[in-house]
């Protein structure tokens, strides 16, 4: 329902745009529809807590990691990207993972990978 309202709003904005903006909006709508297709309707039951101090909070069930991964795969499968972009994205992910594991100074990450850093002979540590 929320998603449908968002799309309607997007359509209204679309009418008042110039041709260049329409092109970019079309592109974004293409991605949006790809994402939309990949989503299966969720059977989310909105449970409000009993009347009291926390009555304004709405508890939503958190989808499992596997569900999220499946959605992620479905979204990406519907996207059309050139091989160069795919390679660039892939290299960025690898770079991000490597930097976080070996060069980040955040105590939690650093301490977890500390011994591995020292075990690889070329990773600078403190």
């Amino acid at each position, binding site marked *: 329902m929320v998603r449908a309202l968002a799309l309607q709003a997007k359509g209204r904005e679309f009418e008042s745009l110039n041709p260049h903006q329409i092109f970019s909006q079309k592109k974004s709508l293409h991605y949006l529809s790809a994402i939309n297709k990949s989503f299966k309707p969720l059977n989310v039951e909105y449970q409000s807590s009993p009347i009291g101090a926390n009555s304004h909070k709405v508890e939503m069930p958190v989808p499992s990691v596997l569900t999220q991964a499946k959605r992620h795969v479905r979204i990406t*499968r519907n996207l059309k990207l050139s091989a160069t972009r*795919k390679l660039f994205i892939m*290299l960025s992910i690898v770079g991000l993972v490597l930097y976080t594991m070996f060069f980040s100074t955040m105590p939690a990450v650093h*301490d977890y990978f*500390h011994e*591995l850093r020292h075990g*690889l*002979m*070329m990773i*600078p540590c403190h």
Partner: protein
Amino acid sequence: MRSLAIFLITLTSLLGASISFSAPIISFHSEQDLTNVRPRHDKVSISLDLPKSNKAGIKSLRVKLLAPPSQIFFSTDFPAVEGSTLFDSVISFEEGSFKFSFVPPIRGEYRLEVIPVPVNQGSLQKEEWRFKIQEDPSRVTNLGFFLLILGLVCGLSAYVIGAAEGKKANLLAQASVLVFLILASPLIAHEQHSPHKISKENMQAEGSDGLKLDLRLSSEQPRVGETAELRGTLLDANNQLIPARFHLTFMQMEHDLEVFSTDLLSSEGQFSWNGQFVDGSPHRVEVEAFPTNEKLKPIKASFEVGVQAVPPPLAATGKSFSSLMLFAALAMLSGFFLGHYKQSRIKV
């Protein structure tokens, strides 16, 4: 004729003296085969001795140990230590021997400089020794395996991207990233570094004979890459300095490893040691004093000190990160072209 002979004899003796002066006076000896020493694991024991035949009359030595300098392509795991002074102290050399043991923190060529100070005024020529410590073979193997995994992950992903267009390619590329993350996750963690300041409780010890051993460190929290001065005095019940031999031990508490030890002889009953703590983790400093007067019992004092870790310099991080990224990019490119070539052959 006679004056010429005297001149020649004088010249010869002067030349002889200058030759013996420039020849090395102190001999360097290591107990271990330095080619098998692993950094951060094995101890190196070095002794500097004055041959008995040599009567140079050396009172003290200024001993300086320098860590290997930085390398161009790869950083070591302690970049803050690279090229720094591990210790620089003046020690008594009245017995004609000085020994110390240390665990080399990094691979590379260490430099030991010694400046003898003779009994008579003046100074002798500086002597220098260089010794090389090789990298631990297990760590080289670890790096090899890691690069193999990284190369396979990157190469396979790029191969799949290059070989096929469409749904399957995306799926496999993501799957390979997932495999990489899963491989990285179950690695063993270690204890968190907590700020650990100097504990002043045991810096003074009192023996049963009324002896007092007092230790002082120049810094509350020494830093990696910089030296800190440790001073110690041994006093009797009348507050008089007692001649003694001091045995110094530095323990790295995280791995319970003795990283440095030496014996310092002092006829004045006090010592000063200017050395570096090379790991940014808590250390325990232990000093045991053995009075020259054997009737007096040895006395021991110790304290713990937290060493301030230094974040790796940007240059060291840049070197290693760019090397890894270059390797990943090369693996991806080769994988991609391999896949692309296979795809074009199938189409033909």
